[in-house]
Structure formats: C-alpha cells, structure tokens
C-alpha cells in the first residue's frame, strides 16, 4: 500500500504545482456558481416598457401604476400613438409597449401589446406577466401553486447542472490529459517497465482527481446552501453517493479517452468535443430535453450527465426520496460499470 500512496502523492504534487490550472479548477466552480446564482437568470425583470395612452382616466392610471410597481416592468416612456411606441422598440430603446385603447375605462375597450418578438419565449412571458399585472383576473379562479421553487429562481435549476458539468470536466478531462501527458513525455514507458500493475498506475492517477472532484462537489454544495440559498432538501448521504458514482463514471470516461489519444492536444479536443459540447447541449442542463426533436432525445438518452442532473434536481431541489430516482441511479450505475470495464479492457500494458 506504501508504493500506492507514494504514487498518489506524486500525482497530487503534479496538480498542486501547476498553479494556473489549479486556480482555474477551483475558480471555475466559484465563478460559475456566483454567476448562475446571482447574475444569469431567465426571470422576467426590468422589461423596458412604453405606455401608449391618449387620455388619462382613472382606470388607465391605475393600470399603469400597477405596471410600474411590479419588478417585472420599468416604464421608460409614455407616448401618444402606437407608431411612436413602435419606433422606440425598433430603435432598441424599449422591449414592450402597452397600448390602452381610448375607451379602456369603459370595459369594452382593450389593451394591445406591441412586443419585440425576436425572442419568442421572452416575448410570450412578457405578455403573460403584463396581462396578469394589468387585468388582475378575478382572484380565486385559479389557485396557482409553484412547487419546489415558489420564487422561481433560476439557480434552483442551474446548480445541479453545474455540478454535472464541472465534475465531468474535472474528472474526465483532467485525468485523460494527465495520462496522455506521461505518454507524451516518455515517463509512461518507465512506469510500464516497472513491476507496478498497470491497473494501479491508473487508479493512483485517478485518486487525486477523485479527491479534487469531491472538494469541488462540497464547494458547490456549500455555496448552493449558504450563499445562493438553494435548498438541499433530499438526503445528503444519497446526494454524495450518487455523485461518487458519477465521478467514477467520469474518471472511466477520462481513462477511455486517454487510451485513444496520443497527444495532449487530441485528448483536449476529444474531451471538449465528445464530452463538453454534448453535455452542455444535450443533457438538459440549459435546454430542456423535452423540447428537442425525437432523434436528439434518443441521442441525449446515452449522455450520462442527463441522468445525474435529473437525479440531483429531484434529490436536492424537490427533496424526493431515493426510490423516486431509482431509475436514474440504476442507469448511472449500469453506465459506470460498462464504461469502467471497457476502459480497463482497452488499457494497454505495452506501448502498442
């Protein structure tokens, strides 16, 4: 066991001595968490709104005040004709115009929204919110209950996604690069010629990254809980256990890549193209899987982070029991075993 620990120690030194990479490895989670927690949101807020009204009666005024009071809208101008409002939108000075018809007060009159529809999604949300704010539909018709995330904060959705991405990145990319680097530098030859079992070389390489990944995991969870106020509703034990399975899966993927790649550049590009792009795009991290065409949904079915992110969203945010994520966990475990076997099988004891 002694030589094993010396192996791990050596690997740890490699990591620690590369300051810049270390800085990025730990800086990235912090920055991403802060950005997603505080800066990046899909919430509707500060929509630049123009009010178009020809006469100022009591009802119209009330409606405008309701708009102005909400955090969703910022009234930037009041103009007389829809044409003026359109001009403002066209010159990128406003996003939404609310046109009150002259007989708005009479209950027969209506409201027209002129909206910058370039982003159809946001446009629809703006009009939804505006309708609600303006018309204040008869209270009590519908009892709306937003489960798990009553304030609708984007962070709830993103935190599990960041975990899925970063753990994969650190484990898979870093391990593969570190193995390929030894190949490139020629030290792998010497390691292979030693009596140490190749399996041990690999496991020893993986251990520091496992620890690193674990530290990053704890950082993310800690920040989520105390800085971003994201609830950790589910069982911590299971969150950690599933994360460890996922980390092992990522390490196996990294090992597979390192078996294929000969140079660090290829390893980097492979990780970026085979891992990073599909993860960000197809795992449901940013873009919901349900909205994709059928074919892409099939593709996303083989992307491991999808299940991890799903499981984490359910466990952390929804706080469900482990039995509700049994399917995801089973798939993850299966994938891990398959990848691990494949990676170890393809590892070459010799140079060829």
């Amino acid at each position, binding site marked *: 066991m002694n*030589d094993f620990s*010396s192996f791990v120690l050596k690997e740890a030194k490699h990591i620690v001595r590369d300051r810049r990479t270390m800085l990025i490895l730990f800086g990235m989670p912090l920055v991403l968490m802060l950005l997603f927690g505080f800066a990046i949101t899909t919430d509707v807020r500060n929509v630049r709104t123009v009010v178009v009204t020809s006469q100022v009666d009591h009802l119209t005024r009330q409606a405008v005040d309701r708009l102005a009071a909400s955090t969703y809208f910022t009234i930037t101008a009041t103009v007389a004709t829809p044409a003026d409002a359109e001009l403002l939108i066209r010159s990128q000075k406003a996003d939404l115009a609310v046109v009150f018809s002259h007989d708005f007060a009479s209950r027969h009159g209506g409201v027209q929204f002129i909206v910058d529809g370039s982003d159809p999604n946001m446009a629809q949300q703006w009009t939804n919110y505006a309708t609600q704010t303006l018309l204040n539909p008869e209270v009590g018709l519908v009892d709306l209950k937003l489960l798990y995330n009553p304030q609708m904060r984007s962070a709830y959705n993103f935190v599990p996604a960041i975990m899925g991405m970063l753990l994969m990145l650190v484990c898979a990319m870093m391990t593969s690069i570190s193995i390929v680097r030894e190949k490139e530098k020629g*030290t792998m*030859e*010497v390691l292979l*010629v*030693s009596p*140490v079992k190749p399996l041990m070389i690999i496991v020893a390489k993986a251990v520091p990254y496992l620890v690193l990944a674990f530290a990053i995991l704890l950082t993310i969870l800690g920040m989520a809980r105390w800085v971003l106020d994201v609830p950790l509703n589910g069982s911590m034990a299971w969150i950690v256990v599933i994360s460890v399975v996922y980390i092992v899966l990522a390490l196996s993927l990294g090992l597979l890549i390192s078996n294929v790649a000969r140079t660090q550049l290829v390893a980097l590009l492979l990780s970026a193209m085979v891992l990073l792009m599909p993860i960000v795009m197809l795992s449901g991290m940013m873009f919901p899987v349900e909205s994709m065409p059928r074919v892409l949904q099939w593709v996303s079915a083989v992307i491991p982070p999808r299940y991890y992110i799903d499981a984490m969203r359910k466990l952390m945010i929804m706080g469900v029991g482990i039995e509700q994520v049994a399917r995801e966990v089973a798939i993850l475990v299966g994938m891990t075993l398959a990848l691990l076997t494949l990676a170890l099988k393809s590892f070459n004891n*010799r140079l060829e």
Partner: protein
Amino acid sequence: MTPSIIVDHVSKAFGEVKALDQVSLQVQRGEVFGLIGPDGAGKTTLMRILCTLLKPDEGSATVDGFDTVGQMAQIRRRVGYMPGRFSLYEDLTVRENLEFFARLFGTTVEAGYSTIGPIYSQIERFGNRRAGALSGGMKQKLALSCALVHKPSVLVLDEPTTGVDPVSRKELWDMLATLKPLGITIVASTPYLDEVRRCQRVAFLHQGRIQGTGSPDDILDRFAHIFNPPGIERADEVQQHTADNVIEVQHLVKAFGDFHAVDDISFNVKRGEIFGFLGANGAGKTTAMHMLTGLNQPTSGTGTVAGYDIRTQHELIKRHIGYMSQRFSLYGDLTVAENIRLFAGIYGMSDSDIERKTTALLDQLQFADHRNDLVASLPLGWKQKLAFSVSIFHEPSIVFLDEPTGGVDPATRRQFWQLIYDAAQRGITVFVTTHYMDEAEYCDRISIMVDGKIRAMGTPEQLKQQFHLPDIDHVFTHLARQANRSSD
C-alpha cells in the same frame, strides 16, 4: 552460465516499415553490450522489445531466462530502463523523482543507495531542485539513478548521452564501469565512437538487420566506411582571416536574478571564420548565442554582430544571420520545398530566385527526389542537413549553429561538416556549438566556456600547446572539470 539476454530471430514491423528483420543476438551476464547503427536502424525497437514494451511479430526474446511475451511481470521486476528522452517528472524535485521511482519498484532510496551512490552523490546536494531546472548532464545522472535504484539485473540505456557534454559522458561511462562487480548486464546504444569502445561487445544494426557482432575494434574496423570515414580536407586551408570582425563582444553579461548565466565574456570573430563555441552543459553557451542572435537582451556589456548593435539593432541583425537551433526547427508538416520557400520568402527573396536556387540546392544535396516529401518523414541526418542549408539559403553573413549534429552517426556528421566548409568557403562566418570534440578540431578557432566565462580561446593547435595535451577532448575535459556550478 546461461546468457542474460537471448534474442532469437525477432522481427517487428510498423505498418509497411520493417523495424527489425530476423534479429538474433546473445548478451552474457555482466556484459556491457553496445547497440550501434544509424538513426532508424531499429535500436530503440529492439530495446523496447527487451523491456516488454513491444511484442515481437516473429521470434522470441528472453531476459534473465524469462520470455518477454509470456513472463512480462518477472522481467519488469528485473529491468532498469532509461528511454532516449529523460523520463523524469520535471515538476518534481530531484529527491522526489528518485523516491518515486524507488517506491515504484517496492524499495527505498536508502536500500538502493549502495548501487546508485557513486552517481547520485554528485547530484544529491541539488535534492530540492526541480528536475526541470537541471542541466542535461545532471538530468542524465538523475535518470540513471532512477533506473538503477532497484538494483536491476539488466540495465537498458537508449542513447543515454545524446545532448550531453563530453565530461558528463565520460563520467557516465565511468559509473557504468563501477557496476560491473555487481554483475549487472548493460545494453546501451550510442552514436559516439569513444563510447562504443567502452563496450565489451557491440552489434551493428542497419535497416533492421544485424550486420555484425563482435568486439568494438573489430566492428569499427569492419564498417570503417560508416564509422570512420576518411577525414575531410578543407580546400582552402590557408585562408586569410585578417579581414574585419563580424562579431565583436565586450564584457557581455546575462543575469537571471542572482545567477550569471553569461559572466563577462569578450571575443571577436572574423569574417569567413569557423568559430567553435564549446562548453559543458549549463556553461552558458546557448544564452550567449541567444544574445548574439537578438533573442535575449544582455544585462550589461556591448556587442555587435555584422556591424549592428545587439542591444538596439537586434531586428537588423536578424536580417543578416542564419540560425539553426538545437531542437530541430523546420516545420515537419511542410514539404522540403515548402520549408525552403517559407524561410527564403521571409528574408524577402523573389519567387523566381527561390525557385532557381531551390532546384540547385536540392540537386547539390541529391535531394531532388524528396522535394515534395514532408520534412517529418525524413531521417534525422537528412533533416539536419536540410535545416542547415535552409539557414544559409538567403546568404547571410553569419550562421549560428546550436549543436547541429546531436545524435547523428559519424558518416552523416562528416557530410554535414563538408557543407559547413562549403559555406565558409563562400565567405559565410560559421559560429557553431558542439559536444563532439572531433568536430572542434575542424574549427578555425575555438573558445571553451566554463561557468559563464571563456577560459580558453585560440586555434585548436594553440590550445593543445598551451595546455600540453594531445587533443581538444583532453583540453576540454581538463577545463570543464574545474567547473563549480552545474545548472542551466
């Protein structure tokens, strides 16, 4: 006693290329066995097969009685291997490297100290320095210590002295000699003739086949046309160098922090001269050369190259010099002709000139058939000849050559020097560094740098007389042994 190593009709092919073709040889226990042959002869492949890194396609090999295919584990416990590139972890310290390799073999530095003591004691005081910051000679000692720390019964060394200065090379072979009483079998490859002579037996490998096995003298004699080609004659020996100086340097210093890599050197080089700039690893040769070629700013001192100030007019200097660096510096993914056109174009030659001169050059080098070959696919010796030709293609007034012939076999080196002589004949000043002392004898004048200072300067004859030594090799060894520092 059974032989330590038996290679029986081993063949190995990489795609179309037959790296080894029916190779058979035996090495006795405790023997120092040399593998020699030109670049690409199959030496490295054979060594890798012995170390179980590669499987032979045909035939079999045993090491210490164990089969390299079936009994990999036993062999890996008994072999010490030092690949061509120093396989050290550059970001770990000397001590950490050694400890790691000791642990790798399930032993400790203390347990192995008796074996590595004579070598390791020389670098022990740098125990806390990172391996990446060591000079070539010290890296080599460390790598050897790492390969020996587990007391292997067979030691395989793949060109352990490439890029290492003559003093360190001698030290390495002295150390290998001390291993003899321990009964360690040594298989080593080398391009240096003096090292070949220190083996008990050698095998000459050429194009994947064993051409002959026997005592060093026997083999060197039998293949004299390759190992000891007739010396080259300089057509115009009595050239007058009374003309102007093309390089003038006064009190040049380059300091990195407290460390003076180049410590107050002064010298002149005359037009048309071949100036040999010698020194041990880490003596400051490359740094000095970088200042002359405008890559580095001097810390203090003055100098002119081709009449331009090295401090202020370095971009003008660059128009008038050619440069060929230690690391092979043509683009491997461009063809021969494309490389020539690129560098000629950079110096502003016209397309028609380039075209005409390219054809002439390739004819002269007998390279015309390879005009459209990728440079990466050429053998090392050819690449270096080509790199030199490219560096003087634009007819610079001075060409700087930084260890141009590292790792090349004697015959190719001889051809290379013929090219240098031709260039000098055309009036190009040649400023060259080398670790081959026979090449030093070819220079008009040489200087020997030790610890950042020039310790001796003059014609080879003058230096031999001054120190009362028979050849430059001895002069160099004599001076370089006085060095106190060993770092780059």
